[in-house]
């Protein structure tokens, strides 16, 4: 298993294990496209924020793309995804329309929450995306509740609850762990350890920085994964998903990753050095990594350029839609507070 620490290259590459054999060229190419879409989308969101078109909080996923994409590749139709506020990547990976996601960022009527949610609050039942939650750690209890519903209905679905190294210190995470294992609920906890809870490094906030061990006292298995390697993510995700789906209860995946940008748009990220960031970008970048795999699989630069062009077009279209979609009608102010009691 790949083991990494902040800024270090994995001690052993998953490519050496041969387990990626089941990931074919076509699938690698799709991973590349999905990851690139997230990166270009987020870069554009950053631009739109700078232009004043996006307001409030905006947390970019750049650097962590391999996790959402790798995990999505093993999820079944009917499975649920839930995460915190750094959620754009998960929504795009789940298959939500980039136009609607971007228009929600700009607070427009065409947004997925009709402009009433914003960056942190988007949902899409069709793709199994249950938010988009702004309170650190809340998604863990909610995601465990989605798993409770799966268990109750016996539908064979798995809930994937994503949270960060910061949320991993919240009490309700452990309340959820306890009940999930007690009742053998089908939930996979994906801890995206990007090394910083806003400005506080894991070393300064966690008495045990190996987050995959956080389930030990609840008898929940966990493993550490190179979250910068989409194939490693997929492989671990398949194990975790199988464990949960087969009725053995929850599973913890600690994804070692890194966010390139600040915590949110307003964070200058003075708590880490430029050298640290640059080293990760140059040695562990998830998109560079998959490019190496693609080259080894015989994909040419020209093939990639076709994908790049397609991604560019999708993002441009999303940005244009988000810029031109009208603001919500004032009549929307009082809609969606209550549902009519007509059941």
């Amino acid at each position: 298993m790949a083991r990494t620490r902040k800024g270090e290259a994995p001690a052993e590459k998953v490519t050496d294990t041969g387990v990626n054999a089941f990931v074919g060229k076509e699938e690698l190419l799709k991973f590349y496209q999905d990851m690139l879409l997230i990166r270009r989308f987020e870069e554009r969101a950053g631009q739109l924020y700078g232009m004043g078109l996006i307001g409030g909080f905006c947390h970019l996923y750049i650097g962590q793309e391999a996790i959402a994409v790798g995990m999505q590749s093993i999820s079944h139709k009917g499975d649920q995804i839930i995460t915190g506020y750094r959620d754009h990547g998960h929504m795009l990976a789940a298959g939500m329309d980039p136009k609607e996601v971007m228009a929600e960022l700009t607070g427009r009527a065409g947004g997925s929450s009709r402009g009433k949610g914003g960056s942190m609050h988007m949902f899409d039942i069709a793709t199994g995306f249950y938010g988009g939650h702004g309170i650190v750690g809340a998604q863990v209890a909610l995601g465990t509740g989605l798993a409770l519903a799966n268990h109750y209905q016996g539908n064979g679905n798995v809930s994937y609850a994503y949270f960060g190294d910061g949320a991993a210190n919240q009490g309700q995470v452990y309340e959820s762990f306890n009940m999930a294992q007690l009742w053998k609920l089908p939930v996979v906890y994906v801890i995206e350890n990007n090394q910083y809870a806003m400005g506080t490094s894991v070393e300064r906030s966690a008495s045990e920085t190996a987050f995959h061990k956080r389930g030990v006292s609840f008898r929940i298995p966990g493993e550490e994964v190179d979250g910068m390697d989409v194939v490693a993510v997929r492989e671990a995700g398949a194990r975790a998903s199988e464990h949960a789906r087969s009725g053995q209860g929850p599973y913890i995946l600690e994804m070692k990753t890194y966010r390139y940008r600040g915590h949110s748009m307003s964070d200058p990220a003075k708590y880490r050095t430029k050298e640290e960031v640059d080293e990760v970008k140059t040695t562990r970048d998830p998109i560079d990594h998959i490019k190496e795999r693609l080259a080894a699989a015989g994909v040419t630069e020209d093939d990639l350029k076709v994908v790049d062009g397609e991604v560019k077009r999708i993002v441009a279209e999303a940005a244009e839609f988000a810029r031109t979609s009208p603001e919500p009608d004032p009549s929307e102010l009082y809609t969606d507070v209550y549902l009519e009691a007509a059941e």
Partner: protein
Amino acid sequence: MTDILMPALSPTMEEGTLAKWLVKEGDTIKAGDVIAEIETDKATMEVEAVDEGVVEAILVPAGSENVKVNTIIAKLAGEDGASASAAPAAAPVVAEAAPAPVAAVPAPIAAASNFADPELPEGTPTKKITVRDALRDAMAEEMRRDDRVFLMGEEVAQYQGAYKVSRELLQEFGDKRVIDTPITEHGFAGMGVGAAMAGLKPIVEFMTWNFAMQAIDHIINSAAKTLYMSGGQIKSSIVFRGPNGAASRVGAQHSQDYAAWYGNIPGLKVIAPYDAADAKGLLKAAIRDPNPIVFLEHEMMYGHEFDIPDVEDYVVPIGKAKVRRQGTDVTLVAYSRMVGFALQAAEALAAEGISAEVVDLRTIRPMDHATILESVKKTNRLVTVEEGWGPMGVGSEIVARITEFGFDYLDAPPLRVHQEDVPLPYAANLEALSLPSVDKIVKAAKAVCYR
């Protein structure tokens, strides 16, 4: 000679059944021996002797019902045959024994359970039922009706409910639908909301609403706001329920009324019934409602019996207040247990020639201020009654609305009766001073009538 007294076995126990004597006259007992079994409305408890001696006389035979706390149930002769002085009561096995409540608590007025909602025809048959069983029946009926409905909370299943509200639900519905949780309010409230987002209809019981402060983030941020934040996509059809407000002598941390807190939140509906009919009819409506509901019960009301319409599928609409007593001189608005206090006050006022109208709010949010306003148009005077604190309270909201919509109808500034602005004290006398009382309501009503 030592008297053995009927012990109080819970904070709210006033009487119980002496189910069984485990000793007989002439037996020699020592401290710690189990001498009797006593049934409360919640449980059967064993009573241990505190002193040693010979059981000289059993004064209350086994099987006696409604034995008041502190009744002499037996006499014990000392080892030497005749000690005269000490008279300690027997000690219940549980440590939480409390003396009988000192505060003068008005009994609910039977006539107050005039359930006659307009839609029920005259002559609808009735039956007597406790508030506790009315709540249980509401859950059972809705669980039979809709298999998406399930109950989760602490001690709801095997223990049959900390206050026995979920009695026998486990036996009927099994442990898949009646789920004992660990003591983990934040976690299981969040899981309940998650399950609701996935389309189920959970009933989440809090052993008391005081413990729900651990879970308030999920009630507000996750349940109440998500429909709006998702542009109408994600609903949370969930009922959070449990006892609210002050029980008896349980101190500040277990005695808070949360009506105003949750009443402040758009996206929530907040219900606080008074009698058994409303407890049942409104809980059934709450479970069917597609929105998140905060259902505030009252521990002091659980054991009270009321008439309830003996009809199939009795559902009371959410959001409608009810005039429980007609009057012409002053409007008293109350909810939950305070409705009984207001009705008692109206009786007292009648004796002094003041005709009080009593409006039972029933639903805190949405608030039916139209019914209050109609009453004030008639009486021109308003007193609000709530168990919670005054500032930013339910009474404040009522007064604001009536001032806004009915200013010209008021002949006197409205008054609010509420808990004194202190954490609820433990001492019996201070507790009584702090809580609203019939006397305080009467005084306020007379004040707004300039009497």
